């Protein structure tokens, strides 16, 4: 009987890899037939996908409700834009590490203020803390003329690699895809490792994990910093792809959008966030073509319906709860744990 149920689980477990494989293939072959506009559109989806991944990591895996992902995104974007426009640095070898570093530093600062206090912060405290941070920095950027105030920084030069410009289009697309893939694979490994298991424990029963002796806050802090780096990377890529940065990229609106992407696509699955970005952006674009003045209402209703009736997001339609939770560590670990007798035998 146990064999049968294991088999069932195994069968169900295959959905996420299938979606991943499908998406990867789609993204790889997409530019072959797509025209310029759709390649630019898809590049933007890939870049914003990184932002969604960063939110899914903090909320879906560590239970940190961060309404401040845009803060890391925008700060990195602004830093890259300033360096590029004021000092003329455009090399990708400088810019991408810079974006990562800024995301990390800002995340550490927010960490110290919001997460790593003496008292264990509640979810609402973290949500409001990060939201406030995002709001404050947006307001400051709007009023600071050195960074362009309300108008932001326009006309960014292009990223370069060894003297060659990375022009928006296929080149930028595959670069973004490569970066996204690397981050995704890394995160997938991390969230399915023993570290990921601890995170799952924290998400479900924080107090119990603390009693087990885990330094819950340190784990949260680490995940938050990592997510900050990813959001920063996204912000840097975004700034160069769109050719400008503005205070809107720092604020609560984009932070909330990151939340929506993930809730809509499917929280705690990584791939759900990417699906969310793709579908929401595509839908809002197509809707706005059909009905120029009423499309935001339709989009809002749609999001509402999905979040109300499918709390696990669109992914929840095909992925079971058991699969969403995932399995941890090495593949055969569950099998050997089920047979303690054998293990005892080998020891003796």
């Amino acid at each position, binding site marked *: 009987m146990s064999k049968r149920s294991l088999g069932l689980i195994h069968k169900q477990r295959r959905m996420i890899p299938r979606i991943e494989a499908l998406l990867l293939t789609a993204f790889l072959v997409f530019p072959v037939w797509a025209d310029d506009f759709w390649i630019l559109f898809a590049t933007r989806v890939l870049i914003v996908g990184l932002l969604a991944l960063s939110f899914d990591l903090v909320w879906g895996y560590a239970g940190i409700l961060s309404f401040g992902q845009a803060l890391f995104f925008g700060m990195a974007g602004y830093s890259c834009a300033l360096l590029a426009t004021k000092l003329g640095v455009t090399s990708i070898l400088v810019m991408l590490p810079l974006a990562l570093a800024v995301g990390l530093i800002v995340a550490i600062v927010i960490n110290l203020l919001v997460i790593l206090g003496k008292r264990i912060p509640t979810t609402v405290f973290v949500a409001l803390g990060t939201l406030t941070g995002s709001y404050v920095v947006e307001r400051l950027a709007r009023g600071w003329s050195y960074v362009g105030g309300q108008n932001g920084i326009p006309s960014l030069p292009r990223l370069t690699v060894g003297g060659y410009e990375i022009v928006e289009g296929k080149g930028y697309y595959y670069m973004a895809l490569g970066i996204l893939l690397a981050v995704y694979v890394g995160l997938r490994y991390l969230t399915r490792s023993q570290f990921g298991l601890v995170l799952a424990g924290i998400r479900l029963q924080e107090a119990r994990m603390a009693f087990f002796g885990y330094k819950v806050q340190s784990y949260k802090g680490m995940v938050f910093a990592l997510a900050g780096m990813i959001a920063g990377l996204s912000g840097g890529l975004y700034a160069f792809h769109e050719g400008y940065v503005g205070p*809107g990229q720092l604020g609560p609106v984009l932070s909330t959008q990151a939340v929506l992407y993930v809730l809509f696509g499917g929280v705690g699955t990584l791939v759900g966030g990417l699906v969310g970005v793709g579908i929401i952006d595509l839908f809002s674009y197509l809707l706005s073509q059909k009905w120029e003045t009423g499309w935001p209402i339709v989009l809002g209703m749609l999001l509402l319906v999905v979040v109300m009736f499918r709390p696990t997001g669109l992914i929840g339609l095909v992925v079971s709860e058991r699969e969403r939770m995932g399995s941890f560590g090495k593949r055969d670990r569950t099998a050997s744990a089920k047979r303690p007798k054998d293990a005892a035998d080998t020891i003796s």
Partner: protein
Amino acid sequence: MSNGEFQVRQRLQSYSRRLFVQRAGLLGGMIALGAGSYLYNPRGSWAADPIKVGIATDLTGPISWGGIPNANVAKMVIDDMNASGGLLGRPLQIYLEDTATNEALAVTKVRKLVTQDRVDVVLGGITSSMRNAIKDTIVNRGKTLYIYPQLYEGKECTPYLFCTGPTPAQQCDTFIPWLIKNGGKKFYLPSADYVWPHVLNAYARKTIEQNGGEVVGEEYFPVDHNDYGATVNKIMASKVNVVFNTTIPPGLAAFFKQLYEAGFNRNGGRLACVYYDENALNITPAEEIEGLGSCLDYFKAINDPGGNKIQAEYNKLYPGVNPFTAGSAATGMYRGLKLWEAAVKEAKSVKREDVAKALDHAKILEGPGGGSEFVPGTRHVKMNMYTAVSKGGKFEIVEKSKGPVMPGECG
């Protein structure tokens, strides 16, 4: 349906039919001659290939009060052009995109216009932040002509970007001497804290001082600020004559109310606000802004034949809550389209370089508030400016500039 409109419709329909025939022919030719033949471009034979005009403006979101009249005017002008036979013998086709008062979204929308629709010109953007966000995508990366219609702080000197709205010089040069004569010498500059008020105030201060006036105070508030008690006290205590306001809604209503209640207007103080048009008169009760002065390129009260004709046509097509006014950039949009039309006619082409060369000195004789023309080498327009005063909830014209006023930008 007018005869001309019918003709254009027919032409557009026949265009798609002809396109199909041509594409089918092209395909046949490619198959017959082998792969190399698709280099042959039959475009020259498509006489009625439409000219594409991209309009990217805020149809939704907080700036939609400006975006909707902009889109309306664009549709009206393009329809008129088509009704009178199009341009260069080709019909015009409008590509309307909603930028939703959201710069991030706008970049994608504008990208669609330049890379997918391959429009020949883009007009639009209301706020400076919007212009800044989309200009690179249009002009540098997209290699397309861009016309920006709104009054703004100036200093936009990007090549191939043409501005058709009033600049600080145009809004201050005639207005501030008038204010000094009809208000007094002591000015106060309460402002919203963003780029336009800062830059406009710098110019206004210079002009005030040149004309023998004095700036008592200059203050910046968040746009949604709502307690102006301290500022109003300062204004009343230092016996300011003119409040040169650049706060904007939503903070604006609170400020005007508090100033009114403190007795500023009653004591003979003069309110001034350069973006105030007929639409803005509805923001506050009429008595709070009695005597408010504004300086724009067009008011309904000018009662000029050109403006009246546009008003009549606009109100017939789009009656209701989104009127044709100067503060919403609708006049700039009209001017932009007409100047561009004149340039295309002169250049006999829609290629960016050719049109830009002609647009550099393009001129129209009629428009809202009179004719206008680009000042060569500046990509800004010189035009008549009018000073109006609010009386009982309506504007009355009190002064007209002596001839067109120079934009004073990029010279």
